[in-house]
């Protein structure tokens, strides 16, 4: 059925004057469960099926989408896409140019062991409520929360140049949060990460591996203890970032600035632009010599939220070196933006949130390669620092120079030993200065491929999941504590 709809759309668009057309038919199933203080909060399951048709006509882009999947509905949608392209041509400066991509005919599904939609909802709720109960056992916890979400995307990509690619992606995620109010403070601890926990291209086996119940008491105890912890000092310090915080640091200060559509000004009105102007490619010293970052959408990188076989304009998954021994070596690109800077092929990073959204450049799995340090050796090697774990707030300017992050919890490192707890840890800096101050990265044994499920970009805005592999790393001479400075 999907193929028939896609063929009809492409045939109609071509007949109406499109010089190129591609189509995404997507059938998306979603389940969301949340609990709070011993009760079920959200309990929702939904499905959405539709078609998005992107065309080039009169040398300009048009896109239309519909969930009216009748013959008339699809033909009208394709005709509208062509008419919109012709309207776009009114403000055209030059014809859209795409780098070539051969036709691909393929089928792919990410591996998973347990279909989360076949696990009884009752079992999923019971797990969250068990973790909730463990958190509320700790005196001082005012809110205990848990959540799970699952998404199955069954999609067909087809193009007027002969591609026909069927992919099925299964995503799972879960997390818990303890919150405590006392005096004039609201403290929180999240496991295994903030903002919904850990998310991967995986089945229910991911949820079972997280041991939410086993980790709940520690989260609750740390949350309450934060009230009496020492305040993060102000000044220049060595910091060690936990792997999930480093994952978000990569997301904001490497992942977004390397998006070539931002660099070329296409996102200037909303998401902003990038300091990584094109003359900096293969010239800018982005980080210290030990910093190596890749954009890797291939399954061999791991089952991240940025893993797939083909992107949403039919380009196979690739690994692009982004930072090589500290040197800036690559962008995230599409067929159109690659042509704009004279590259021969797209980096394969075009993705759309759903059938009713246009594919755009999105992060795949943007990961820092593991270093050589054992975690205990890194702590022992550090004389005076703050270890910061689990993001609490994040902000960066619209060219991605200046950032400020705070984390839920910190620990003082003195004389090579982990010491007292620190509350309100925060740090700030300039992107390239920060990455050039990195002098130690932990090894593969401490490397985790984190999922960021809530990355917003575009107008109309699209939310996309991205992957970020990271292990704990050390940075020297970083400004800390300014978020709470008076």
């Amino acid at each position: 059925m999907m193929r028939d709809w896609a063929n009809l759309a492409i045939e109609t668009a071509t007949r109406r004057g499109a010089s190129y057309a591609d189509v995404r038919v997507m059938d998306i199933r979603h389940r969301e469960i949340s609990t709070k203080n011993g009760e079920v909060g959200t309990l929702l399951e939904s499905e959405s099926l539709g078609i998005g048709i992107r065309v080039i006509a009169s040398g300009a882009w048009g896109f239309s989408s519909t969930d009216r999947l009748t013959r008339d509905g699809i033909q009208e949608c394709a005709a509208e896409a062509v008419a919109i392209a012709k309207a776009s041509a009114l403000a055209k400066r030059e014809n859209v140019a795409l780098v070539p991509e051969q036709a691909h005919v393929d089928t792919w599904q990410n591996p998973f062991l347990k279909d989360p939609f076949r696990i009884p909802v009752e079992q999923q709720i019971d797990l969250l409520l068990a973790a909730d109960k463990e958190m509320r056992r700790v005196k001082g916890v005012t809110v205990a929360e848990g959540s799970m979400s699952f998404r199955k995307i069954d999609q067909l990509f087809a193009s007027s140049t002969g591609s026909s690619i069927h992919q099925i992606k299964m995503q799972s995620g879960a997390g818990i949060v303890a919150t405590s109010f006392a005096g004039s403070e609201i403290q929180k601890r999240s496991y295994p990460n903030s903002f919904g926990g850990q998310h991967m291209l995986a089945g229910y086996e991911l949820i079972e591996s997280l041991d939410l119940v086993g980790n709940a008491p520690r989260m609750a105890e740390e949350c309450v203890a934060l009230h009496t912890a020492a305040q993060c000092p102000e000044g220049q310090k060595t910091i060690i970032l936990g792997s999930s915080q480093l994952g978000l640091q990569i997301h904001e200060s490497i992942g977004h600035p390397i998006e070539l559509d931002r660099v070329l000004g296409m996102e200037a009105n909303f998401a902003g632009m990038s300091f990584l102007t094109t003359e900096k490619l293969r010239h800018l010293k982005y980080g210290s010599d030990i910093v190596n970052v890749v954009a890797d959408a291939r399954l061999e990188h791991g089952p991240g939220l940025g893993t797939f076989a083909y992107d949403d304009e039919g380009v196979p998954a690739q690994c692009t070196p982004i930072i090589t021994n500290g040197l800036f070596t690559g962008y995230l690109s599409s067929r159109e933006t690659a042509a704009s800077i004279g590259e021969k092929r797209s980096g394969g990073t075009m993705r759309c949130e759903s059938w009713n959204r246009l594919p755009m450049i999105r992060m795949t799995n943007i990961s820092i390669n593991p270093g050589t340090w054992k975690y205990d050796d890194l702590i022992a090697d550090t004389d005076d620092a703050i270890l910061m774990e689990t993001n609490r707030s994040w902000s960066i300017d619209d060219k991605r120079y200046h950032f400020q992050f705070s984390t839920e919890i910190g620990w003082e490192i003195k004389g090579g030993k982990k010491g007292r707890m620190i509350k309100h840890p925060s740090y700030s800096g300039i992107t390239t200065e920060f990455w050039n101050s990195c002098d130690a990265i932990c090894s593969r044994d401490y490397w985790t491929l984190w999922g960021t499920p809530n990355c917003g970009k575009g107008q109309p805005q699209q939310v996309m999941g991205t992957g970020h592999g990271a292990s704990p790393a050390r940075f020297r001479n970083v400004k800390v504590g300014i978020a709470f400075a008076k």
Partner: protein
Amino acid sequence: MPNKNPKSTQAELERIAERILKLSEADGTEVDVSSTTDALTRFANNTIHQNVAERTLGISVRAVVDGRTARAGTNKTDDESLRRVAATAVSLARNEPENPDLLPMLKSEKYQKVARYFASTAGTTPEDRARAVTRVCKMADKQKQTAAGIFASGSSQSVMANSRGLFAHYEQTRSEFSVTILEENSSGWAKSNSPDIHKIDPGALAEKASRTASDSRQPREISAGRYTTILSPSAVLDLVGFLFYDFAGTAVLDKRSCLTGRMGKKVFGENITIWDDAYHPLQSGPPYDGEGLPRQKVLLVDRGVPKNLVYSRATAKKMKTKPTGHGFSLPNEYGEAPMNLVFAGGDKSIDEMVRTTDRGILVTRLWYIREVDPYEKILTGMTRDGTFLVEDGRIAGGIRNFRFNQSAIEMLANVEMLGPAVRAAGEESFEMVVPAMKIRDFHFSEVTKF
């Protein structure tokens, strides 16, 4: 071009709702059916680079079974899919623990009429948007500037019905124009939205952004610190938007609100009065909440004193008060929130605020605002697209952008002047009716590179 991909009619939505109510085997059933057509023309580098349209239908069914409730959704309208979505909601509900807070569904309610549908907005074509964008791009070309932005238009309608006889219908159009004008080392921005496209003037907005870009050329770096700061209505909106959930009864019940322990105390300035008012002529959105309860106008802050919260039905019962019509669709863990904030404005123009400032900062737009401390309500973020130094009562030129770390509570206690309240649009919050503000001792903590 006539709309080739029309939205569903009200009668079609009603038929779907009625069909599901008949098919459902739940003790109680609530159905929301919504239909949207939306289009957005996006431009950058003085050309249209994306141009999109969508037609979507959403069907959402809430089932109540033995004191339990759950929701299922679909966009498929065939009989088998409607039967399945109703059955899924029932099946989900059956498999959860009983909910002691669950109340019976509402019976029929009466709603105050709001007129937020404009045929001219719904009838806007891709050519209409492209022509307006072309004029803006040509203006930028002529000024040797670069334009980027969006021009969007669309319409939506929804029907809510339940098995106890509640029926609600709402229809609205939307239009929005947003533009950033770039020069080599400066930029300007303007944005406006309205249900009525005739209220949007793309040319005037582009000219405003163009002036901001040219006036802020060659920005100089000044040191961070506390400054008297004049915030545009958009910048005010993006900051105070972080306060809206603090006025939810559930947030106070959970001790997650910055108003915990502060209700009835003077925490803001005497000149701060805030309502939630879905019926205000500059507001938008339906006159009922996620359960179909009519929205009430609520005085949230009276001359600096937080007076009232908003409540869903379940939260009101827990807190022994009356619901205000601000509940979210059930089931959810958040309860409610005011969604139609209206500030009492003043009579000072931004020019007058500048004239009366010896040394200060004028801010066009804020960006990437995040909460650093939820109780003291410290927010961090950046200035963007036109930040100016004010000296001796006049604008002295553009400056490099600042990072701020500022308590929203302290900010609303330090407001020295208010402009007229206008419908403002930003990026971090939904639209609201807010004034420009002149604020004492606003805390800029660091400077960026541009």
